[in-house]
């Protein structure tokens, strides 16, 4: 297929992908309401809630949405997102000024230069790794990216020149954030702005010719290859875009924690980001932030709620609780909380006389909905089997 024809076809797909149905407008209205509520949150909610719970939920959501994006639109479940955000965080933390100069290179760059450097390094490494990893699919891709995560973790654990002995502490941040420990509001707004920006960017990208082609590759790589698309390149670029998003989360996490240590990017955090994305629901980008909020709330409040049951359960055993929640979600509702919500609307909605939820589904049908829903779609081979069947 010639380039012109390809652009023509993609353009047609693009036009189809832009419905302005009432349902889509309703979706935007809901998002706008949530946005306004969040903007007002520092005025309404208690300080701890805003500076701790919501802020963490926002940056964790950015990390998770990079995974949701790759899974939903590229069919790639990546466990490497925390490795990438760790690289970004460590790269930044090493080059900027650290107050106590404990660990790290402490080169004394200005914070913004550090941000650019951190993101650039992470994106560059992710591009190289993506070029190799993008040739594996489904479960192989998951394992390859998990290997990346663990290797990056052990690398920073071993190379103490870069990670210090207890991590790089007191990393300086741009001046307008002020003291993040006493007043978290500026950082909250930065996280909110970054979340909105990332969300809009990803929504835009999946409607570009690149995004449409990516979804075609998710559903049937050989067919797209035979149409003349460069399949590995599209997957590599998608992985790189995901890395860009993840590295933003990495920067924000360093500002939030005021430090970064190998323990911040270990297997626990890798799984946490996966859990967040899956709990929220891999079928929609918004799920990442919903999952992040749920995760943060459980993390925040489980300490006071959890009863002590012998050695099995206690206030310190957040991981057992989140593990069980994760297990239940994967077993019962592969679409996560969003899936539960949508199913509730299908069942309960008509009874209450609300609008039938079939409409929004139809509105999004042009977005190249996967053949199956949920986790199983992310696997290229199984969805192509379904097509052939």
């Amino acid at each position, binding site marked *: 297929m010639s380039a012109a024809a390809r652009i023509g076809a993609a353009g047609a797909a693009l036009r189809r992908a832009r419905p302005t149905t009432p349902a889509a407008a309703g979706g935007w209205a809901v998002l706008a309401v949530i946005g306004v509520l969040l903007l007002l949150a520092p005025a309404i909610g208690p300080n701890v809630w805003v500076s701790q719970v919501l802020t963490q939920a926002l940056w964790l959501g950015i990390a998770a949405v990079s995974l949701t994006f790759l899974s939903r639109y590229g069919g790639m*479940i990546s466990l490497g997102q925390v490795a990438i955000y760790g690289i970004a965080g460590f790269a930044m933390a090493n080059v900027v000024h650290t107050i106590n100069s404990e660990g790290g290179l402490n080169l004394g760059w200005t914070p913004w230069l550090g941000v650019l450097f951190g993101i650039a390094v992470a994106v560059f490494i992710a591009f190289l*790794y993506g070029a*190799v*990893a993008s*040739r*594996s699919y*489904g*479960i*192989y891709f*998951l*394992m*390859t990216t*998990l*290997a990346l995560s*663990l*290797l990056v973790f*052990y*690398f920073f654990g*071993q*190379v*103490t*020149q870069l990670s210090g002995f207890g991590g790089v502490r007191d990393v300086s941040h741009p001046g307008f954030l002020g003291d993040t420990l006493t007043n978290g509001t500026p950082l909250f707004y930065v996280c909110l702005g970054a979340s909105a920006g990332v969300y809009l960017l990803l929504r835009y990208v999946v409607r570009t010719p690149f995004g449409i082609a990516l979804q075609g590759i998710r559903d049937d790589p050989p067919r797209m290859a035979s149409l003349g698309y460069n399949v590995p390149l599209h997957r590599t670029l998608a992985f790189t875009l995901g890395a860009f998003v993840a590295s933003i989360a990495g920067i924000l996490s360093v500002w939030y924690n005021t430090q970064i240590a190998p323990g911040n990017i270990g*297997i626990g955090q890798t*799984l946490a980001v*996966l*859990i967040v994305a*899956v709990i929220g629901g891999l079928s929609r980008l918004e799920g990442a932030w919903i999952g992040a909020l749920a995760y943060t709330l459980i993390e925040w409040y489980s300490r006071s709620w959890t009863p002590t049951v012998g*050695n*099995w359960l*206690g206030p310190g*055993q957040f*991981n*057992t609780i*989140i*593990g*069980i929640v*994760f*297990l239940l979600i*994967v*077993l019962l509702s*592969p679409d996560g909380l969003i899936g539960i919500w949508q199913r509730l609307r299908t069942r309960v909605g008509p009874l209450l006389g609300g609008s039938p939820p079939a409409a929004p589904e139809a509105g999004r049908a042009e977005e190249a909905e996967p053949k199956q829903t*949920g*986790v*199983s779609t*992310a*696997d290229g*081979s*199984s969805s192509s089997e379904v097509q052939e069947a």
Partner: protein
Amino acid sequence: MRTAVRQAPRAALIALVLLVVVWLALKGSKDGTTFLQVTLNGLSIGGLFFVVAAGFTLIFGLMRVVNMAHGSLYLFGGYLAYKAQASWFHGAASQFSLTAGNKVSVASFVVPLIYATVVIGLVGLVIQQVLLRWNQGQELRQALITIAVSVIFADQLLAHYGGIAQTINQPTSWPLSVTVGSFHYPFFRLAVVLGSAVVIGVLLYLLIKRTRFGMIVRAGVDDRAMLSAMGVNVQVVFAAAFFIGSALAGFAGVLGGAVLSVQPGYDTQLLLDALIVVIVGGMGSLGGAAIGAVLLGLVQSYSAIYLKFGSTDLTNYAILLTFILVIVVLAVRPLGLFGRPA
């Protein structure tokens, strides 16, 4: 031009391998004893990796289940044996009593070993029957389920066995080292770890290539639906394979607990090692697991010793070589050295 680009990774790989061989030969000719020591270290740790990865790859090859809880089973096996040794054989588990002349009988090592192997096999079987059996074919969902299991396991093991590193005692009646001329090497690492890895490898090979069960397993790897249609009860075969695969993790956990230690974090460490072994060797291939395990073991042990150039000590960066191993193999063969498309 295109072919030149295609061939570039292969040429780079060959050049890299040659470089490494020449470099190692130089090191070996300088100090033969150290070289032999380091090589045997690599081979014996590779043997441990093989036992872990063999179970992992057996389960994957047949059922397409990536058991992310495999590392947890390894660690659980180590803890079970440690507890069994401590509570059933009095005094055997106290490390300090050894110097006071306390004997650790062979039984106090072998009985916990068998106990942990069998129990872990059963634990794996329960996981498969309860959580995985009814969503067969949904590979990613099954991977997520086992990830959830591993998260719960890690937390529970920490709560029940604590965070302190423990060691399983080796029998005192066994010799401490093997001696050839002036060269000594720990008996346990050489004979028990490497030996049992070889024995397990051979047994698995015979099981898969020579028995009716193995024939069914091989047929199942190629075409599950057809095998089932021919009247074989595939579920029983799956259950048996899951039992064997998990039991191997438990067995390796006991050996690892005796050679290294039993402590939190080893679950992910060994899961990473198993992953790298099967990524390098090729998923589902027993021979690939053996090659991958030896490669990984050697790379780890050489890079921990030989990454010193004059006064610059780069051993901190040893993990990067493992990384390079993975990247190079994936760049040349995306499915691993012995991998086949599903």
